[in-house]
């Protein structure tokens, strides 16, 4: 699976309250509606700038804070195809896998706003076409790739009709 899109650049320690503000978070389970407010406290127009397939690119500890699954869900519903960061907070990480949002752990320091990226999950690399550079990614355990390919834990369980990792 190759993902293609532009980079939207954010910094370190982007927490779940920033990803989706508490003002909206629990008003509704309508993720399409919630996704319009993605990262708006950092950039009020962010949702409008996203083209289908684009990437969020961040520094360390992306997704720190609460356990709320709305955080990876709104990113997925905003048509972001993957989040690239130098590291992820652990609850966000498991939630993203469980809802079928691909995460890419790699050195993001050289990726700039607007760079054209190709993410090759199976091949284990990111190609920054703007800079003509290749970045290695930390491979995911195979059961996580299976969960992602099934679109998340719901699909995975249905396909496997049981619980196996």
């Amino acid at each position, binding site marked *: 699976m190759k993902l293609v899109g532009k980079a939207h650049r954010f910094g370190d320690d982007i927490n779940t*309250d920033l990803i989706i503000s*508490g003002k909206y978070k629990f008003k509704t389970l309508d993720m399409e509606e919630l996704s319009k407010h993605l990262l708006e406290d950092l950039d009020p127009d962010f949702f409008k700038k996203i083209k289908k397939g684009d990437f969020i690119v961040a520094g360390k500890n992306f997704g720190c804070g609460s356990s709320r699954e709305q955080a990876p869900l709104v990113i997925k519903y905003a048509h972001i195809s993957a989040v690239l960061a130098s590291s992820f907070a652990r609850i966000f990480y498991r*939630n993203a896998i469980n809802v079928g949002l691909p995460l890419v752990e790699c050195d993001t320091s050289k990726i700039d706003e607007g760079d054209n990226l190709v993410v090759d999950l199976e091949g284990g690399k990111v190609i920054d076409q703007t800079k003509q550079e290749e970045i290695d990614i930390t491979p995911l355990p195979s*059961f996580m790739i299976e969960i992602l390919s099934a679109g998340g834990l719901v699909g995975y369980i*249905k396909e496997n009709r049981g619980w196996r990792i």
Partner: protein
Amino acid sequence: MNTIIQILSAHIGREVTPGEFVETKVEIILGNDITFPLAIEEFEKSRAKKIFNPDQVVIVLDHFTPNKDIESAQQCRRIRQFAKEHNIKNLFEGGFGGIEHALLPEEGLVVPGDIVIGADSHTCTYGALGALGTGVGSTDIAYAMITGQCWLRVPETIRFIYYGNLQPWVGGKDLILYTIGDIGVDGANYRAMEFSGETISRLPMDERFTICNMAIEAGGKCGYIEPDEITLEYINQRTKRSHKVYKSNPETSYIDTREYNVSKIEPQVALPHLPSNTVGVSTLQPIEIDQAVIGSCTNGWLKDLRVAASILKGRKVHKEVRLIVIPATQRIYREALKEGLIEVFIEAGAVVSPPTCGPCLGGHMGVLAEGERAIATTNRNFIGRMGHPKSEVYLANPAVTAASAILGRIASPQEVAV
């Protein structure tokens, strides 16, 4: 083998090693009014018919309760219906409720050796009972309800050793803030945090809960304090359920060990916008505040209310400050009433709220306006956490928060107490 590895190995039936992914059975599956509705959706999407064991499921309606608007009321109603359909008896709210992480220990629902997964990041609190408590997502608890299982990465463990005598007005909150300041907000990412040493073994349960509660603010998977007589006395007063105490072997290995001489630690304040931005309270220039909040799963315990009352007794809250006091559970509220603490708060000019997570996450009961500043005994000071994105939250212990409410600026308790 360290204790976390022992607990996981006992649940899985073989010796596990850090870094491997395992599936484990769990004893308690916890959800609340904002995470459980999504778990119901996932549960229903999977077309599962019944819950693996309804007695293992605990639901606490605590974040937006008493319901603040129609949406939150609808969500709670849906949860009640689901609980009834699936025979979930452990549903707590209203006069029988409180903030989940204070309520479960109080109800005797968690015992040493348990694995507790909760769709709430502060599930790490149960480490204070010698249990492995860890925050997960709504989908995780949906599948644990179906299968009784959860996938986990076996964590490495960092050991934190505290020695020496605490300075006046320094407590568990200061030890954990200081530690987070030392290692950073991702200093324990994916790792377990074991808190030990002579200082910890002298702390009462309330302060141990505070320490383990904030393990997540350093990214930790769980906190852990080895059960001792204080723990077992607490447990035995509340439940007859059998438990198992795990103790580290002499050959236990840790990925890192950090030692702190607590006699050098003064009351800490975490400046906006990260819990790791900690400084000693005496080093601060005057910072005026609009609101002070004493409560939350971190510091809404009885001991916290006693400390705050000891500072507020016979004094008045600054006229330009709103002080909000929130006992963490109904039982704590009642005890505080009996001890006369609530009267002290009201006499001083505080508002006393029923138990709720409320302002901690900018939900209700004390949301901040643009440009406002609060000092709070809560656990997060992220941008917009307590309200407007241009508001600020400073984290501190109950004594500092009470003293600040009196003086109208962030203050050391020593400035008001003699």
